[in-house]
């Protein structure tokens, strides 16, 4: 398939000798306007690739931080149409930062997968991560996404053994997302040595960049992971910062955007140090 902004950005990070920082926020969290403001502020703070979470009522792979972010967004009346609106608004100002939509299959399925990937591409989306569509069901979403020019980024996990890995990688494009722990987002103790071995094993099977996520919280962890990986994914730590910045009624404050960007700056420095 044709090159996407994701391919270009990972190549650029490699040329600049740093790990790419992949940052996740949930669309519509804590409200549409603030969420859009955070979204737009991420590249300047140091995020190289943005993962925008599509809120779903039953986020089975998420830990409490992203569950709560999802609930805040849905309580505010967030919809898929508003997620696309956010992407379009972002693209008016930034035509280079890659955007990945991340979420679960049902909200896509009810819209019709083919129509969804077409709309996503037109809005300016570069890639998708859909947690509950494994390679066994590639025909449903992964192949249509590729045909529409949208990278379908697959998760590889500690339970993906050598025998299964080729199947996971088969139709993957953009990059490979290695899940560093067996578990849900935002939990688990990160073991940089084990991750390094897993990343090497994936790289033996593919030329795609490998980004590592689930459980990265500090600049030091980003640095340690970034030494062996091409990218570092952070999410729960950012949505927790949003939560902690809210007032007693759960509304955004003037500190909400900076709460996220401050953390991003530290993590971006960690990613730079990783390859220094």
């Amino acid at each position, binding site marked *: 398939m044709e090159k996407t902004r994701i391919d270009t950005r990972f190549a650029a990070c490699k040329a600049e000798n740093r790990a790419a920082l992949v940052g996740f926020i949930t669309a519509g969290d804590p409200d549409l306007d603030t969420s859009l403001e955070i979204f737009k502020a991420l590249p300047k703070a140091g995020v190289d690739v943005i993962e925008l979470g599509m809120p779903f009522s039953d986020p089975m792979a998420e830990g409490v931080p992203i569950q709560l972010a999802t609930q805040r967004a849905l309580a505010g009346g967030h*919809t898929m149409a508003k997620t696309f609106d956010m992407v379009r608004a972002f693209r008016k100002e930034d035509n280079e930062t890659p955007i990945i939509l991340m979420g679960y299959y049902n909200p896509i399925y009810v819209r019709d997968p083919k129509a969804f990937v077409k709309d996503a591409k037109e809005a300016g989306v570069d890639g998708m991560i859909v947690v509950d569509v494994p390679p066994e069901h590639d025909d449903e979403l992964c192949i249509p996404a590729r045909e529409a020019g949208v990278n379908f980024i697959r998760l590889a996990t500690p339970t993906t053994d050598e025998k299964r890995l080729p199947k996971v990688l088969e139709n993957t494009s953009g990059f490979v997302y290695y899940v560093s722990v067996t578990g*849900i987002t935002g939990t688990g103790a990160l073991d940089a040595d084990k991750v390094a071995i897993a990343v090497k094993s994936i790289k033996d099977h593919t030329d795609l960049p490998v980004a590592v996520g689930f459980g990265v919280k500090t600049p030091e962890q980003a640095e340690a992971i970034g030494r062996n990986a091409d990218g570092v994914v952070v999410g729960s730590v950012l949505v927790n910062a949003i939560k902690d910045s809210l007032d007693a009624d759960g509304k955004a404050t003037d500190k909400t955007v900076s709460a996220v960007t401050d953390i991003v700056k530290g993590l971006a420095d960690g990613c730079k140090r990783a390859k220094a």
Partner: protein
Amino acid sequence: MTDPTTLPNSVSQGPDDRGFFGIYGGRFVSETLMPLILDLDKAYREAKEDPEFHKELAKLHKDYVGRQSPLYFAERLTEHLGGAKIYLKREELNHTGSHKINNCLGQILLAKRMGKTRIIAETGAGQHGVATATVCARFGFPCEVYMGATDVERQAPNVFRMNLLGGVVHPVTAGAGTLKDAMNEALRDWVTNVADTYYIIGTAAGPHPYPAMVRDFQSIIGQETKEQMLAAEGRLPDMLCACLGGGSNAIGLFHPFLDDKDVQIVGVEAAGYGLDTDEHCASLNAGKPGVLHGNRTYLLQDDDGQILEGHSISAGLDYPGIGPEHSFLRDSGRVEYVSATDTEALEAFQLLCQTEGIIPALESSHAIAEVIKRAPTMDKDQIIVVNLSGRGDKDVNTVSKFLGKGSLAE
């Protein structure tokens, strides 16, 4: 009776190798779980071919559960309704008080074969949780059960039973705190503890092979019914009737009869406050196809694909989805799916108490409610079999509250 394998138009042959019944089913899980699901599929296929597995299960059915469960002619209920003869398949007489034990025994034997050392489960009414805690005690496994906080409250006796049996109950506060949320949390536990943990799903839903496997373990209900009915009446029944939450007791009764074209089959969903409100759990009657908890099936959801919280007086039916084989049987037209409201279920509950001296579970009362509508319109030589899937001891507090009786003490 006909041999399904010779029928070109059989509806009983699913699922295919990828776990699909028509377009329903499949394996929509995260990558972390996928290798496990494939292992489970392999282990189950091997167990199915192993006579020793069946022998062990049959012995447990007989000596531990008390099978076979009686097929009982409900004479006074039949007289009262004045139409078709009504037989009750007495699954409520099983050890632990419902059909749930059939599935749990099969799955615990499989967990043992697979070398797993820890068991988790989700539960709604608590019947599956109790059955799981029971088999864990019997086979010496640690057991953790996820149960919605709302259900923990309305099914308190079952929580205590699980504790007595050594099960640890985790109340789930996410969402409305009912079965759907309990299942999310069980899946989160599973994905975190994949190496040693076996997840005993309580209904014929979830990623392949669960829908087929749970159906197979529950099909003993229909197989026994067929034999018992032939012995009692010398022929097959005219109609089968069962309630549906996830649909395991229903598919267990229905499946052995799917290719018997003259047997009419009726499934009863929970209509809660009514299908004209948002407060019901009738996914086949009022939902649309979607993907949740590892399978494609009919779901209660909004236009944006967000799953809705259902409502039913019966905690065991309070689920916005349905086993995928039922979705297939709905679309194929083989099974008719109707619904009964909370009020109708409560009336049926009382009628069975008064006419037969049997306190049914509120879940099963939905099936009785449909029989109350149908039997009087049928001839006296026609026969209905209704699956009495559980006993109602756990529900007496709920019923007392709804009937305005206040305290249980006279």
